[in-house]
Each structure stands twice: as C-alpha cells, then as structure tokens.
C-alpha cells in the first residue's frame, strides 16, 4: 500500500467533505479515491467517513487520526523539498585541460548556473580525465580522441617570444600583417655560410599533447620534415615552458588562446592534421551514462580553444608523389 497516496485521499476528502471534489483536487478518478479510503479504513480497522447521509461526514476516528495523517504528509513533502534542493546544490565535476582560459571556464560555470546546475572545473592531464569519468569522480570531461573521431578540433600552433623581443620570422606576417602558417620543415636548422650551424629553438610540448597517438604523430611529422632528433620534446611545468618561450629560448606547441593570454606571439601549424581532438563525454556511470547537453559541448570546446562554428573538413597531407617502390629499394 502506498500509504502517502492513501493518506492524501483521506485528508482531501475531509477538507472537501465530498468524494467527487476530493478526487478532482487530487486529479484522480472518484472510484480510485473511494477504493483508497476503503483500503485505509480496512488498514486502521474502522470507518473514517459516515456515508449514510447526503453529505459525507468524518467519523470520530477520522477526526482523531487527521492531525497525524496531516503530519505524515507534511514531513513527506519536506523530505521531497530537501532532496530537490540537495540535488540542485550538488557540484558536478568537469575535467578540463590544464591550460584553459579562466574567462572561458567562467562562461561555462555561469551558463550552467542559469540552468540550475552547479559545475566545478577540475584541471587534469588527459589520462586522468578519462579515468575520472570511469570512476565517477567526474560528471563530464573534455576527452582527447584520435583525429578522425574528434567532434571538437583545437588548432595547434607555435608560441614564440613577442615580436619586439625576438622575432620568429615564420610567425610574423610578411604581407600586410596576414598571419602565415608555420611549416615544420621551415624550422630545420639553416646551414650558415659562416662558422657553426646556428642553434635551433626547441619545440616544447605540454602535458595536453603528450597522449601517445598525438605525440607519436607529431614526432613522426617532425622527423619527416627533417627536424633533428630531440628538437620536439616534452616541456616540464607549463609555467617554466612559457617563461623559456617568452625569453626567446624555445617555441611552445599550444593553442592560440593560451599563447595570447600570456602575451606570446602565436602562429598556426600549416599541417592541420596536427591538432588536439576532443569529445565532451559524460560519466559512464550507473544506472545510465550521463548525456552531455549541446550548450556544454559548445562552451567547453571554446574554452579548450576550438574556433567557433563547425570544424572544417580535415585535410590530411597526401604523400609527396614519387616512385613508391624505389624508395623501398637499396639506394646510393
């Protein structure tokens, strides 16, 4: 027996002094209401209403039990309210990359608040964002996925010291300030006509780009472009990598907002296959996986540095045309 529903029928009938009006108030059919009251009477072992007259009247037992029934219903209602407000106050943790712009993250939090949801941002390395979703410590996360599957693509480029301090030729627009993309083979050391080879700036990578497939793709592209071994290497903490970059001693692989936010110049990599691919995923929890609302995906994508609008179709670099088989033969 659903005691609350039965008590509701009983209290409403006392208030209305009518089975039909009580049924209307509760939005149920009158036979159902009558049945509930009969069940309750059987349960308590006595009549609650006197049905012998034209107007329904409450029996002595019915009047005796009324305040207690009312009390049960009030408490049940308060229980429901507490549960609802607790649900609203619950913080949902969102795993985000370590170098998101605080302003963009604030936008996500505000948008959630407007929808009655409280979000908490957790800056985590890529692997911990995945494990967080799995163990339930995160409700949502920006998860790195290989390029062909990614719904969100964040272009990568190289941050360098601001032009006034140490110009990076490829990063400075040559024609009317138009931003030129950086080709990896342009970073090859130049043979100098005088003395030793000039030092080449190392390309530092952040934790966010040290996921295996992305790192491997980058190192391979660097090797194919003729860059010396070890030129592309993991940076330590982001702050020191930035300091080295701003001092003109390194180039830092990162997304544009991160570079701008810290006063560095930035130019995109020409090879757009080298990007950060993300999906916004919900916890794969019980009883069901958490759905990710579209507004959240869009705002998190922007926070990670993805340009507005749908991503362009990805142009994967084609192989340089040549006789494929002779490359596999012994050569001079």
């Amino acid at each position: 027996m659903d005691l609350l529903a039965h008590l509701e029928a009983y209290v409403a009938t006392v208030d209305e002094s009518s089975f039909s009006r009580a049924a209307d108030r509760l939005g149920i059919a009158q036979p159902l209401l009558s049945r509930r009251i009969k069940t309750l009477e059987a349960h308590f072992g006595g009549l609650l209403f006197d049905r012998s007259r034209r107007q329904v009247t409450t029996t002595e037992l019915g009047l005796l039990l009324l305040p207690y029934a009312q009390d049960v219903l009030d408490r049940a209602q308060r229980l429901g309210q507490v549960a609802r407000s607790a649900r609203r106050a619950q913080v949902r943790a969102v795993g985000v990359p370590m170098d998101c712009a605080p302003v963009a993250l604030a936008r996500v939090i505000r948008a959630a608040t407007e929808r009655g949801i409280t979000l908490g941002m957790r800056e985590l390395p890529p692997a911990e964002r995945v494990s967080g979703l799995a163990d339930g410590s995160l409700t949502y996360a920006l998860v790195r996925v290989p390029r062909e599957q990614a719904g969100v693509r964040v272009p990568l480029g190289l941050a360098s010291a601001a032009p006034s301090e140490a110009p990076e030729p490829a990063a400075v627009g040559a024609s009317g300030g138009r931003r030129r993309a950086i080709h990896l083979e342009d970073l090859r050391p130049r043979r100098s006509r005088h003395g030793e080879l000039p030092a080449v700036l190392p390309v530092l990578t952040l934790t966010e780009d040290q996921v295996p497939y992305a790192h491997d793709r980058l190192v391979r592209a660097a090797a194919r472009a003729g860059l010396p071994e070890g030129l592309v290497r993991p940076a330590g903490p982001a702050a020191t990598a930035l300091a080295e970059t701003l001092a003109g001693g390194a180039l830092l692989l990162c997304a544009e907002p991160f570079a701008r936010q810290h006063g560095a110049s930035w130019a995109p990599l020409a090879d757009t296959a080298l990007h950060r691919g993300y999906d916004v995923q919900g916890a794969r929890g019980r009883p069901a996986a958490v759905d990710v609302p579209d507004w959240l995906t869009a705002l998190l994508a922007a926070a990670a540095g993805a340009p507005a609008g749908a991503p362009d179709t990805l142009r994967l670099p084609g192989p340089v045309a040549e006789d494929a088989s002779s490359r596999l033969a012994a050569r001079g």
Partner: protein
Amino acid sequence: MSAEPVHRPACVAGDGALLDVAEAVAADWAALGVRGSFLARNLDSGEQLGFDVDEAMPLASVVKVPLALVVLDRIAAGELDPARPVTVDPATSSIGPTGLAAFRHPATVAVGDLLLLMLSVSDNAAADALFDLVPVAEVDTRLRAWGCAGIRVRHRMNHMYECAAGAAGNDFSLALELAVRDERAGRHTIETLDPAHANLGSASALVDLLQHVWTDEISQPLATAELRRLMGFQVFTQRLASELRADTLRWSGKTGTFLHLRHEIGVVEAESGDRVALAALTRADRRAGLAPDIDLAMGIGARRAFEALRG
C-alpha cells in the same frame, strides 16, 4: 624518454689526441640519435681512430664494392669480357631510383659499364645483372678466399626491396617504422636487416678491404686500379665527402642507404700524399627518409678524422 641502456661506444685510437677525435665523433652521432660504427685509418702509417669497429651491419649498397672487386678479378683473370653486352629489361630488372633500375625501356650495356653504373650512381639493376654473371655464392667464396672474413655476401640487391615490400606492402613509412621498431626490439621483420640473413660487414673489415685495394694487396693490380678509378666516379657527395671537397683532395667512395641505414666507405687522397680510408656505418632511430643532418655529421666526422690522421 625510454629507459634503454645508454650505449657506450668502444673507441679505438692510436693515441690520446686521436681518442679525443673518436669520442667527439661518437658524441656528435649520439646527439642525433645515430648508432653505428666508424673507422678511419691512415693507409701509410697505419694509425687509426674509430669506435665499435667490429659491429657487423647490413651493408645495403656498400656491398657493391666487394661485388665489383670480384667481377673485376674475373675480368683481370680473362674469365669475363668487359665488353660483353648485357641486356637489362625493365620488365624483369631490379627496382631502384637510379641508372638502369629507373629505365623504362630495355637497354644493352657492356659489363665494364655495368660496373660504372653500379659504382657511380648505385644502380641496383646493373648490380643484379652482374650478380647474374658472378653469383652471390661465388662472390662470398672469393672474399673468404681473400681473407675478408668480416664481409658476408648472401643476397642480390633486389632482395632488399622484396623483403621491405613484403613486410610493408610498398608503404615506405611503414617499412621505415618497422625497421626502427625492430632495431629497438632486436627482432627483424625485414629479413635483409637481420644480421643472420643480410649482406654484412663491419667498419674494420671494410677499411681492411679498402686498404688492400689501395695498396694492391688483393686480387690483381689491374682489378684494384679499375676499382679505385670507378669509385672516384661516385656522384653522391652528401655524406663522407661533404666536408672533404677541394681540388687538392680526391674522394673515392661508395654510399649505402636502405630505410634507416646510412653508410659510406671510401678513401680520401690528398695532393700532399696523405691517404686515409674511412668507413661509417649508421642506423638512425628516426622515421625520416632524408636526414641531411646525419649525412653532414658523417661528413664532419670524416674531415676531423682525416685532419687528425694525415701527416
């Protein structure tokens, strides 16, 4: 990045100054992710410097030097006519980027000129046409008879292509990937990179061979003189020769390149009379077909060694 044990090259050198040069070259290579062996020897004083000189490596196109010597020996003995015409048909000839291997129409070339094509532009089709006349086993046997124990000839040139394409299906990047990965794992998917099956040689065995060729201590003077002349025609200058290019210097060499392997052997002769034989055999831990910095590092090492060893 990984916890691979650091390789310490075993240096050989006549004295402390030469040891410094050997160590500097080894350090230079290591900085580029290159493993290998290096040996330079003054042909007259016998002084030498190098490191890991006895490590046997797949020879790639460097094997064309011992092949040429055995063919020239047969010619000098009158058993083979250098004017004998050989027709090379692209339909059946060996794969390669230069010379007859890149021809699209059948061509008939004399044996003596096959040798020129093989040594000047590293022509795989010319080399395998010569292997048709002097089989692999005979080249190997003759080298053993001459006492060149450190050099093994086991297969034709095209076998390298067949093995690489067999493993990677004409995908150069994949073949390179396999080569680099297998080197770390110590197991070889591409048979011609496996020391148990490849044409093999060490820096010391190759420098010994060059020394014998330049001092007429092997085969016959007619053969060694022709080999010296032909090796002087090599067109590739990006490796050991890169820092030894002067009108007063003469370089005679033979390169070898296959996937991650970059080799060259040769002799630099100065107008002053100094003669230094060199062998540089490398394998790179890098998935790049072209690596001019590695080629240049080999050239810089060659010049340092030559300057340290010349009188």
